[in-house]
């Protein structure tokens, strides 16, 4: 599923130093579990996003290892500390080797 994958992230644009912010992420992906059968009875091969990471200025916020039991269009919500201005980088790793990334700047005022 290399085409049409559109990651989306929601987080504030500004924060105070040391603030806790809530981050929500969504990526459209059918997350084929490898358990389903097609109309001919053949197993549909597994094709999922198997890992999601969030980093801020190179430091890890969260690292999620995903199994086929994660619903399609995987959604995550988590909390991060913002010590300074900088850039969040969100990365999704697909079974087929594709890597989807999205970055967002946040300013500490």
């Amino acid at each position, binding site marked *: 599923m290399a085409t049409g994958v559109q990651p989306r992230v929601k987080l504030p644009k500004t924060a105070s130093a040391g603030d806790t912010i809530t981050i929500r992420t969504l990526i459209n992906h059918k997350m084929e579990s490898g358990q389903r059968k097609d109309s001919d009875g053949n197993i549909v091969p597994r094709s999922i996003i198997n890992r999601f990471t969030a980093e801020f200025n190179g430091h890890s916020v969260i690292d999620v290892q995903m199994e086929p039991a994660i*619903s399609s269009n995987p959604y995550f*919500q988590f909390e991060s*500390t913002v010590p300074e201005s900088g850039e969040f980088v969100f990365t999704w790793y697909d079974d087929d080797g594709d890597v989807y990334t999205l970055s967002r700047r946040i300013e500490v005022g």
Partner: protein
Amino acid sequence: MPMTRRDVIVLATGSVAAYGLNAVPARASAADDAIAAFTGGAEFADGGVVLDIPEIAENGNAVPISISADGAVAIMVFATGNPLPGVAKFSFGPLAASSFGSTRIRLARSQDVIAVAKMEDGTFRKTSRSVKVTIGGCGG
């Protein structure tokens, strides 16, 4: 000897019972094995992990779930009644403001969902919740 209807019924119920007895421990051990792979076989205490999941999930394809545990470095979620018990492992980095995560998961049928947290001191904690699923979420 001709097979009577009674013989057939006895045979059928016997095989169903045998299947049931075999199937249940097999599933339980798959989940136990998965948990042991995460904990390295260490003992764990009950409680200390917040596992927020609806008691009744109408659609097993997307069941909202939140996990948190103060002082946890990682939390792993297991669905004991799914074909594969592992669901997701959340590892919290130095910038995580809290050991909290929320996502949506698939549940094949009514079952127990287990969250196991690895604490900073290397101990493990566990919380289990029973979920009733109206429509299973793993296709067929």
